[in-house]
């Protein structure tokens, strides 16, 4: 199973803009390479990333083969209330991964 790394501050002040860093381990095979014998290697990439904050979508991205292996995505959000972030990655060949992070807003 793919492993993900998430960096979200554990605590934040209400209204503060926090940075969220995400990394999913995935080889992101572009589909443009060939084996030694000339057989094309089929594409196998993460195509979508969605982040939700207490169930509401705050960020999403469509990824293409030009994203480096182990897609690393950083974005920001306003800390509105204590709760849970959920991160979902989906991709080729039925790839799906989910990760959660909690935040306390004071």
């Amino acid at each position: 199973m793919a492993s993900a790394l998430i960096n979200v501050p554990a605590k934040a002040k209400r209204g503060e803009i926090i940075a969220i860093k995400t990394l999913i381990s995935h080889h992101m095979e572009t589909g443009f390479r060939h084996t030694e014998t000339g057989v094309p290697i089929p594409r196998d990439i993460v195509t979508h990333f969605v982040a939700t904050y207490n169930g509401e979508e705050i960020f999403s991205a469509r990824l293409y083969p030009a994203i480096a292996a182990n897609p690393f995505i950083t974005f920001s959000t306003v800390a509105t209330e204590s709760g849970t972030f959920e991160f979902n990655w989906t991709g080729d060949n039925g790839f799906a991964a989910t990760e959660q992070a909690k935040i306390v807003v004071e």
Partner: protein
Amino acid sequence: MAGSRLDQPRRNRQRVPTRRDTLRGAIAAGAALPILCLRRAEATPADMRAAIDNVVGAARLNVGRVKIEIPPLVENGNTVPCTVSVDSPMTPEAYVKAIHVFNEKNPQPNVISARLSPRAGHANIATRIRLTDTQTVVAIAEMSDGSFWSDSVSVIITLGACLENLI
């Protein structure tokens, strides 16, 4: 010394390759080597324009408000840090709806399309991308009022992202 090359009669002397022979051989071998890094199908600036037109449509593409940051000289095209920030208040009345990144020379012009909401606070995203060759990378921001803003950056790549055969 008995038995040494110089003591033998000229016609019996075993021919030892000279420096000149070695050089000649090396040049011939170099010429005969197939070109290993054949250029694969690549997107052209025209493909990039088509991909941008797809996003922008009939709207006008303005220059400014967006800042794309990539180191100007990159050694490894397989992981190139790329940051895009957009000047926007990020309020429900005026915010950045989406940020798109395009390249000129990879096999495909699209890199990433991110959707943001006013809840982002800042319109800043960062990721790591692949670039096959020295080229221009373009970032486009789609604003909530329907306007489009862009910025571009030229990047020199020493070693491009891997498109060659697997070894």
